[in-house]
């Protein structure tokens, strides 16, 4: 029998604590769309995506209504385009991005991810073409997301790719300067990228995946924060409270994932157990850390609090879902989290502290605005540091930086919506140019040799 308490607890989570399913993402393989003629390949891509995802948005909305759970995004991820485009030997990958945009428009999804390349060990010609096409591709499209995996624990760090990405991000910032360099919010540089991540901008459909899959990303920082408000115990009690809450959140995600999979007749892939904040008040990961007893996110103790949170979310969620994957953990994007924005504004949270925090959370330096005049080599060096943390700790790390064109420390970048606003943060004034200029590969760490 359903109890009144359970019903009202669920209702309160949804109505007042911002509980939602963040995204249903349909992963679609485009490996069968390759052709030596790029136009033919783009047509096949458009046709296949539209065929597979025809009912995605409609079905998502139906589930939303029947279960009363807000499902914020319906999205699509595809095979890394550098693989699909390789056969065409084309000198540009921009037409592929345009085909993806057209398919996104037709299907009514708000983002499509997979304008991507996996170059952790080296580049193919097609990888280079795709990476060089990123600034133009992301400035002539609105909803296409891109990612480049430049490092892995097994392969080490491709420092030539790291060096290249600094310049690409700068160029993209300039090309989208009229929209506050928003293009840079759509590109992520990864180490150990997961191949089934439903969250943007880093989602793509890995080559080890089936033809099509439904992946779901949950959310719910507000629910965890409210649960902790009622928890007066020690940190063991805090961890237990987070686990119980994460369990409930994930069960909801699992239900939505299996319903979507059944109705769309597409295999269920994974549930991503992530706490994804939004700029809305009461939906912040920083505020969870503060609820644990920190005066401000970023102060001493923040890394420990985040480690506890990240671990408890996974432990609580893993039993609630039959398949867990993606990024799974707590996200710490600056611009998308009201508490993080506050903490940066009052100088409690710095770039160095954020870097330390990425060693224990699920992603990396995310949605951070830096001065527009920062050099490409400094951006590359920030990427290299972050990649090193991921590679050595066998975890995913990522960088999504916005070198805000024409802006400097003290200014702010306002994207609005879920992307929020980001105060421009200072970077070191000392150069890393020679280090980045060396290029080559940083060898895989000894802990990669597990066989």
């Amino acid at each position, binding site marked *: 029998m359903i109890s009144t308490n*359970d019903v009202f607890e*669920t*209702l309160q989570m949804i109505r007042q604590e911002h509980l939602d399913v963040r995204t249903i993402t349909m992963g679609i393989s485009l490996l069968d769309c390759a052709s030596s003629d790029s136009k033919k390949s783009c047509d096949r891509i458009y046709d296949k995506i539209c065929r597979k995802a025809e009912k995605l948005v409609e079905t998502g909305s139906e589930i939303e*209504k*029947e279960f*009363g759970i807000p499902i914020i995004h319906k999205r699509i991820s595809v095979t890394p385009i550098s693989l699909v485009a390789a056969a065409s030997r084309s000198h540009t990958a921009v037409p592929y991005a345009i085909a993806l945009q057209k398919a996104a428009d037709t299907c009514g999804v708000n983002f499509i991810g997979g304008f991507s390349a996996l170059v952790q060990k080296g580049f193919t010609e097609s990888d280079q073409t795709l990476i060089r096409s990123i600034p133009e591709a992301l400035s002539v499209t609105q909803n296409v997301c891109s990612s480049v995996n430049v490092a892995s624990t097994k392969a080490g760090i491709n420092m030539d790719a790291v060096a290249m990405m600094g310049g690409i991000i700068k160029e993209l910032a300039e090309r989208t300067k009229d929209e506050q360099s928003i293009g840079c919010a759509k590109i992520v540089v990864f180490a150990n990228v997961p191949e089934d991540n439903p969250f943007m901008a880093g989602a793509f459909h890995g080559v080890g995946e089936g033809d099509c899959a439904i992946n779901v990303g949950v959310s719910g920082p507000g629910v965890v924060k409210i649960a902790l408000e009622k928890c007066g115990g020690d940190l063991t009690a805090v961890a237990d409270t987070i686990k119980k809450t994460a369990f409930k959140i994930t069960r909801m995600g699992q239900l939505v994932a299996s319903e979507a999979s059944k109705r769309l007749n597409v295999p269920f892939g994974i549930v991503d157990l992530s706490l994804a904040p939004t700029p809305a008040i009461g939906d912040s990961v920083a505020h969870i850390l503060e609820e644990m007893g920190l005066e401000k996110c970023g102060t001493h103790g923040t890394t420990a609090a985040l480690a506890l949170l990240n671990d408890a979310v996974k432990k609580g969620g893993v039993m609630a879902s039959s398949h867990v994957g993606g990024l799974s953990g707590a996200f710490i994007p600056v611009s998308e989290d009201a508490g993080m924005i506050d903490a940066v504004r009052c100088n409690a949270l710095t770039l160095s502290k954020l870097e330390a925090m990425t060693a224990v959370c699920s992603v990396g330096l995310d949605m951070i605005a830096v001065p527009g005049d920062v050099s490409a080599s400094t951006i590359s060096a920030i990427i290299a540091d972050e990649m090193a943390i991921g590679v050595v700790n066998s975890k995913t790390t990522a960088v999504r930086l916005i070198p805000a064109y024409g802006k400097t420390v003290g200014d702010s970048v306002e994207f609005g919506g879920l992307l929020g606003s980001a105060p421009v943060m200072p970077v070191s004034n000392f150069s890393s140019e020679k280090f980045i200029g060396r290029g080559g590969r940083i060898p895989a760490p000894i802990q990669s040799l597990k066989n």
Partner: protein
Amino acid sequence: MKAVITVIGKDSVGLISNMSAVCAECHVNIVDITQKVIEDLFVMMMITEIDGMNVKFTEFVDRMNKKGKEMGLEVHTMHEDIFNAMHKI
């Protein structure tokens, strides 16, 4: 299959009859009602049987919302699976 309907709002004459009339129109059978009036705030939960309904579930949700809106009430009509998933192992 069951649906859980919660109604929250200011108490008024005919509230239960109006909401249950929508259920009857759609052939939705009410199997349990719990309600409470706290000061003048009315809180009600209905468990309903939806197997024999004569409209699509989403249509029923729309009709309940419409009626709730007319009467100034907050109405949530949700499939029971969500509660079973979240609160039962």
